[in-house]
């Protein structure tokens, strides 16, 4: 009953590249949990993706989902 959470760029410096954690019911709940554990994350600018799609607002999470914290892109 877990979800995978990925962190990239400057966010990976705070949290690490990836954590596997027990499933939580929504994206907001996930963020709150991570803010408690990694207070530095709270002030960072990022978008969120669920299963490789950018999402906005709150989203229900299910077992096996992959969530990613995506700081501003700087490719090219």
């Amino acid at each position, binding site marked *: 009953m877990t979800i995978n959470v990925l962190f990239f760029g400057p966010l990976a410096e705070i949290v690490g590249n990836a954590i596997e954690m027990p499933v939580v019911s929504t994206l907001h709940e996930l963020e709150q949990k991570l803010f408690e554990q990694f207070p530095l994350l709270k002030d960072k600018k990022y978008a969120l993706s669920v299963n490789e799609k950018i999402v906005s607002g709150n989203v229900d999470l299910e077992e096996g989902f992959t969530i990613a914290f995506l700081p501003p892109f700087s490719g*090219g």
Partner: protein
Amino acid sequence: MSENKIKNIFRSGAIAAEFIADSIAKHSAKKDIGAHSIFLGQVRADIINDKTVAAIEYTAYEEMALKKMQEIREAIFSKYKLTCMHVYHSLGVIKAGELCLFVFTSSPHRRAAIDACNEVVERIKKELPVWGKEVFEDETHQWKENK
């Protein structure tokens, strides 16, 4: 249709000029092409607070980036009358002066090739989950942010 297969745009390390030449040369067999448009991104030795950028280290959320690139490719092919399109983006440490992005569009007439190339570059910068870490000569770093 070749534009529907997911292609890996990522390359480890810098893009070599010879690779670009090979890519250009291969198109001489496509005799309906009249125009090629190429964009190359090169790592700048920017000076930020008296420190010089020695390299950019690129990382990506590869699976997501490749899906997004595929979406961009399909949108571009339905918008422009292109003969072909190739995109390569470096990952890893790319030194100042080296090439990190190669976008290559070809079409019978110039407008489609030029406009498509331009749009692909803009979308890559804005939409692909890729990050560049500017590494200074003293080995400190800062994270780039695209404007």
